[in-house]
């Protein structure tokens, strides 16, 4: 593990994360209602997720298997026996008065996920304490300004399957926390476990943070742990942690309060204001009276089932980075960029690279042209009009010397704009390959017209031949500059 980047702060920030991700199932965890986001309120509800009297839950097999995928990818141990517990508390978005969750026997535990900064600033292996399955709550919409106005309850989300991932307090800076969350999201999206869309609430993060402050006497002071909630993006996680670390340091300097002297505090992140604020502490709220849910039976998992899930997973991003770099002889940095763009980009890249028979050039086109264009157009690769065979066709023509890269870029833009094939665009722009005879005639003409350059080349300054390329392109824009240069040198040397 590399040394953490030197920080100017006189303390170490110690961070643990609690991440909730919604699983990409068709139906809810315990009933057959759809989990699709964005439906009108209370249209995806039934007696089970409304918590009507007499209704009973039945476990969604796909949810359990997706959760196992996530746990296995996080190197967790899968419990051979797991059960469902009720977490009892009253809230109107929790219509049963309890959440079906897992308490003392989660289906998986003891894993890790490493994040490596591609620029080498840090590499951090973060321990996973546990991954468990539970049901989501509905949505409460309160008009805070109105104060005492009624709260509106939409139960469409109630019962959506959630994976809760709890890490060890292994992260050592807000930047690491953000990078680790990016890595986690990438992994879960790769596996098809979750779409991890924070705007739609399918990934939510709470952070536990405190400071370790080295003191002059050699001891280390530890500040009280604070849980931060309400962070709506990875960027706000980073900002909130930076703010909270500074706040804790100020408070420690002012009060000297240390871990264990106060009950754990919860603070909410106020994004527009850029501050964390203390949330109201409810005295009895932590007495959840967990007990085994008598409406559900336990789940047992065999080694064979674990193996089957593992076999269905495909390569995770960490493995893919290495194999991509090795297979296509591209740099670790390039492999990282491609893999971080997601499974579809990697597939696109590999198809282009296979067709052109080379990785580096495919990677360059992907990064400089395709990704940039996708960014500008705000498009996903699936909807990108230039398919891998077309891009490979274009790159192939550049490689053959039909035209140069900058000319290739013009063709790329025209294909994108017109939706026509590469061959069509090449023809319509009058870009025809320049034949050998034609090229030699052109070069002879240039040599005759530039005796100074000829003399320089003959005197050993081959680079002087570059002066002929511009003139050649003026006479015929389709000539390949490298070919012009080599042909002219060959002709001069033969004189």
């Amino acid at each position: 593990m590399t040394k953490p980047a030197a920080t100017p702060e006189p303390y170490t920030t110690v961070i643990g994360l609690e991440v909730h991700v919604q699983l990409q199932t068709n139906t809810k965890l315990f009933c057959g209602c759809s989990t699709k986001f964005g439906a009108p309120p209370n249209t995806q509800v039934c007696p089970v997720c409304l918590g009507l009297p007499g209704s009973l839950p039945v476990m969604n097999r796909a949810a359990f298997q997706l959760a196992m995928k996530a746990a296995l990818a996080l190197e967790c141990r899968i419990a051979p026996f797991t059960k469902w517990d009720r977490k009892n508390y009253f809230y109107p978005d929790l219509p049963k008065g309890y959440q079906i969750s897992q308490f003392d026997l989660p289906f998986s535990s003891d894993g890790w996920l490493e994040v490596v900064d591609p620029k080498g600033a840090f590499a951090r292996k973060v321990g996973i304490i546990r991954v468990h399955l539970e049901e989501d709550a509905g949505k409460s919409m309160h008009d805070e300004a109105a104060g005492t106005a009624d709260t509106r309850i939409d139960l469409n989300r109630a019962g959506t399957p959630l994976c809760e991932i709890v890490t060890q307090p292994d992260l050592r800076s807000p930047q690491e926390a953000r990078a680790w969350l990016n890595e986690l999201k990438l992994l879960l999206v790769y596996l098809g476990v979750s779409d991890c869309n924070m705007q739609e609430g399918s990934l939510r993060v709470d952070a536990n943070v405190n400071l370790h402050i080295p003191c002059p006497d050699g001891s280390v002071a530890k500040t009280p742990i604070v849980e931060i909630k309400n962070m709506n993006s990875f960027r706000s996680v980073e900002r909130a942690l930076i703010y909270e670390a500074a706040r804790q340091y100020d408070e420690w300097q002012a009060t000297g309060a240390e871990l264990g002297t106060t009950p754990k505090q919860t603070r909410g992140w106020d994004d527009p204001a850029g501050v964390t604020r203390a949330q109201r502490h409810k005295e009895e709220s932590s007495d959840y009276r967990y007990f085994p849910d008598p409406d559900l039976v336990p789940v047992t998992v065999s080694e064979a089932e674990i193996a089957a899930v593992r076999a269905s997973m495909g390569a995770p991003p960490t493995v893919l980075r290495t194999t991509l770099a090795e297979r296509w002889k591209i740099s670790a940095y390039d492999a990282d960029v491609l893999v971080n763009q997601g499974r579809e980009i990697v597939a696109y890249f590999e198809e282009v690279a296979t067709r052109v028979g080379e990785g580096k050039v495919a990677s360059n086109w992907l990064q400089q042209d395709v990704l940039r264009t996708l960014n500008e157009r705000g498009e996903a690769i699936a909807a990108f009009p230039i398919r891998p065979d077309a891009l490979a066709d274009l790159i192939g023509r550049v490689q053959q010397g039909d035209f140069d890269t900058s000319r290739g870029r013009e063709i790329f833009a025209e294909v994108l704009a017109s939706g026509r094939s590469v061959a069509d665009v090449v023809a319509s722009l009058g870009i025809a390959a320049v034949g050998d005879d034609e090229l030699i005639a052109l070069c002879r003409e240039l040599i005759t017209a530039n005796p100074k350059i000829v003399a320089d080349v003959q005197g050993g300054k081959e680079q002087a031949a570059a002066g002929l390329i511009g003139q050649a392109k003026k006479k015929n824009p389709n000539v390949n500059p490298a070919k012009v240069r080599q042909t002219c040198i060959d002709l001069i040397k033969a004189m």
Partner: protein
Amino acid sequence: MQPAELSAVDLVAAIRQGDLTAVQCTEAFLERVARLDGSINAFLKVDREGALATAAAIDARRKAGKPLGALAGLPVAVKDALCTRDLPTTCASKMLAGFRPPYDADTVARLRAADAVIVGKTNMDEFAMGGSNENSAFGPVKNPWDLARAPGGSSGGSAACVAADMAPVAIGSDTGGSIRQPAGLCGITGLKPTYGRVSRRGLVAFASSLDQIGPMARSAADCALVLETIAGHDPLDSTSLAADVPRYTELLEQPLTGLRIGRVADHYAAGLDPEVKRGVDEAFAVFEAAGATIHEVELPHAKYGVPTYYLIAPCEASSNLARFDGAHYGHRSNPEGSHRAGSGGQAFESPLVEMYCRSRGEGFGPEVKRRIMLGTYALSAGYYDAYYAKALKVRRLIRQDYLDAFERVDLIGGPVSATPAFKLGEKTGDPLAMYLVDLYTVATNLAGVGGISFPCGFTRGGLPVGFQLQGPALAEPLLLRAADRFQRLTDWHLRRPKQIA
């Protein structure tokens, strides 16, 4: 022909053969309800129009030669703890005022699919918590054998309506004896099947690991008929058993020769009423005469059954009843009420919490509150191991007692209640005394096995005495066959209360 005098088996046959129409049959029972229920209070809701419309539709289909279900035209009364799509479902609680379920319980759906006629919803102890039916928010049910006495509970309305011939069969639910005990005190037959034999979906949960729906009727043969329809796997109840459903009605014929029935010495401890003891002894003698052999067996942890039950059931109930909070259905406190603080003068932290506390404080009756409090306490931080976890361990010991006993005998016999029906109000001031009425019944539920109770005699005062048989898991065919054989040899189950004849 007087339909009220026929068994359910005979009614179904008469309707199928055309000797009786479904409408005639339904009207005959509804007429008795109209005449008698004012003094018994067995029904919370009588669905006269719905029942007659269903009956008429069945008659029309029969006339048109279309196929009919196994219970075609049979009137059935359903305990108000089961959800019914077109009828209010209250669990005899103010808390469920205004609640209309948008779905049928699995049992109700199976009854409808078999062309049974649902005549109404029966009174019960609030949320099935009680052993006398005095915990109903809508007034107690009276025992048809003596209107000054309780019918038992919690399925007191179901037991009383069958005893008074207001319905040939009724559906009950049994969490710690709530089918068997009122059946015993009302002189009818009630079966609590093995846990999971009948789907719990749509049964408003009291204690999910103990609750089980079952039939209540005048005879074991009638119970067999109804069980055949309501038993079976429900993929939407995770705790429903996948085992095939036997043809219970066709398995009654075999004699009892060689059947081993266990007798538990502890059942005869202090507190057993001498007249009940006499009835039970005579019942054993009948079984011996029928070819069975009687063996002494031990259930060493039986005496811990009631305290174990009164931890596990309230713990589960405290969670199961959390959904009744005034937010999505049921009673919501009027916000302009009198008191502005919680129990012991604690301040409410928000208008929402105030609404919760007051809705639940107003909606639940005293016994329900006691059990919610007990369960909440026993599950709360610091007490879980001492109470809930301890009870689960004793539950294992109790189940093991049964597994051991059923190695030696086929069924276990004994009293269903220590006394015949007690007077209304006799035990209402003492919750613990009321809890002890479940003495002989709770262990069946804790072990998850089946039990049946049926009349085995009468006291000198004319009150029925009940006998209970318990069997291993899925021994319903044997329980029904033994009870049916007993009823072929005796006529206790044919006696009718004089006051309401």
